[in-house]
């Protein structure tokens, strides 16, 4: 029996520094559901609660009240088994390249699966598959992770989590600090991975463009609450609501709005450059 939702939060409240005067409520009665198999984006201004939410999903943090469910199961039902939750919901943190420690790339990738109890053939297979999913050549497996470039290190860290075969993959700003080509590589790779393996993916990001290009639906957070959770196109059609909480729409959407104001109407549901180019070509073909 598979549950209705891959991820579900019910009335979750979480406070930092509970006993100190500087206590802040990072999540204020948050409820949300994420269906399995797609790529969901999570955006919000700094301090909106994104990182907290993400750490609650794999049990790094425990909610003050409310329930966290993965595949319909309360992850805190058996607190002693919380470690297993982390194999189910793989979390790749920000700038994950700083967590590499092993002597070879293969060993570092194997860390997660080893903690799950895998060894021998199965372990090797997982490592090789994860490396390939992550865009790492076989020749890199025996190298020291510290000899790699920043982008390659990040792929190693990503492979390390993919190797656990999690049903849910959560990534906190996976493209942070990368150049446009690097961003395309990593996010493209994640999208391919999700489609091929059916893994539910949750991407936290600040980039509207990335959300528009890679996510099926988007959760918008503001001030410790969920503002909205809708399909991508619907989220970006609400520019006013987004700017009210310090967010924006993709640049190309603003260009489309400006074009419309100046008499060239290609519609406002424009979120990617490719789509805009296509529409403009149509428009230009129409003109006498």
């Amino acid at each position, binding site marked *: 029996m598979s549950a209705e939702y891959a991820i579900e939060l019910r009335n979750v409240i979480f406070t930092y*520094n509970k006993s*100190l005067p*500087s206590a802040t409520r990072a999540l204020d009665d948050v409820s949300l559901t994420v269906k399995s198999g797609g790529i969901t984006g999570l955006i919000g201004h700094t301090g909106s609660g994104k990182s907290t939410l993400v750490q609650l999903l794999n049990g*790094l943090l425990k909610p003050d009240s409310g329930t966290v469910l993965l595949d319909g199961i309360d992850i805190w039902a058996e607190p002693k088994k919380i470690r297993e939750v*982390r194999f189910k919901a793989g979390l790749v*943190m920000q700038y*994950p390249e*700083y967590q590499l*420690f092993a002597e070879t790339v293969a060993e570092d990738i194997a860390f997660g699966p080893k*903690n799950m109890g895998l060894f021998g053939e199965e372990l090797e297979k997982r490592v090789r598959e994860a490396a390939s999913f992550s865009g790492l050549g076989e020749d890199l497996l025996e190298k020291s992770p510290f000899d790699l470039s920043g982008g390659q290190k990040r792929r190693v860290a990503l492979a390390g989590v993919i190797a656990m075969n999690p049903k849910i993959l959560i990534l906190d700003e996976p493209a942070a600090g990368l150049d446009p080509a690097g961003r395309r590589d990593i996010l493209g790779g994640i999208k391919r991975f999700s489609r091929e393996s059916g893994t539910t993916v949750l991407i936290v990001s600040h980039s509207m463009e990335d959300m528009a290009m890679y996510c099926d639906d988007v959760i918008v957070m503001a001030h410790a609450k969920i503002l909205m959770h809708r399909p991508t196109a619907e989220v970006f059609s609400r520019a006013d609501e987004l700017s009210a909480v310090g967010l924006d729409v993709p640049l190309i959407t603003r260009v489309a709005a400006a074009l419309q104001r100046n008499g060239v109407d290609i519609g406002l549901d424009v979120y990617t450059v490719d789509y805009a180019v296509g529409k403009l070509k149509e428009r230009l073909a129409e003109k006498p």
Partner: protein
Amino acid sequence: MKSDIIFGQYVEGDSLIHRLDPRIKIVAAFLYIVVIFLAKSATAFALLTLSAVFFVLLTRIPPRMILRAMKPLVFIIVFTAVINLFFMTGEHLLFQFGFVKIYREGLVNAFLIVLRILLLIVATSVFLTYTTTPIALTDALEQLLSPLKHLHVPVHEFSMMMTIALRFIPTLIDETQKIINAQTARGADFTSGGLIRRGKALIPILIPLFISAFRRADELATAMECRCYTGGEGRTRMNTLKSEPEDWAFLCSIVVLGAAVVLLNRLFPLVTIAM
């Protein structure tokens, strides 16, 4: 994690003691400690206790914070008291249970030694840690020790090392927490297993942490060089320490206190400590 460590225990404030020149405070703390050890008679101790209370009030720090400074030493205090109470012999036997004997001398000694320890705690916390920022302390130390430069002691370098170390402690604590989170998210287990197993489990934390520390050190060195840092020679400071009359007055008061203690020791040797 950062919230657990209020580093250096510095308590913000604007009292007289907060505003004293940190160099004077270091010397004053040192002198005060000497005076505490000079005290022998109960009257001297009474005077010292009064002075301690006076200083605590001057800082306007809530007394419970001072009590908190005593917490880590509770064991030593109790241990010392017990040793003196039960194992010191003298002339006046007070109680006897079986072969456990408590003498008046033991009781008095226990009391005075405990008092001495408490006074020492007050001296260091009130003069130094609670009312002086760690940076001010390292600055003051650098200046106080600067005459040693003539003996080729690298005073400036030590001070710079301490300042940088202090500045990076919160940063490294945050980094450690992030690394722990990242490895925990991959199923790392730091709580189970014997000593060796737990020791090995620390490798995925220590290695990234060391690498991170080296990387930061490298970046900091480059940044400092880019801003023309070449060591302590000819280097000036933005906040120069200037001693005001009240600083010297404070120092003198400690010296006077010391003189008073010596006098009281001689003139009113009511009950004396045997150590």
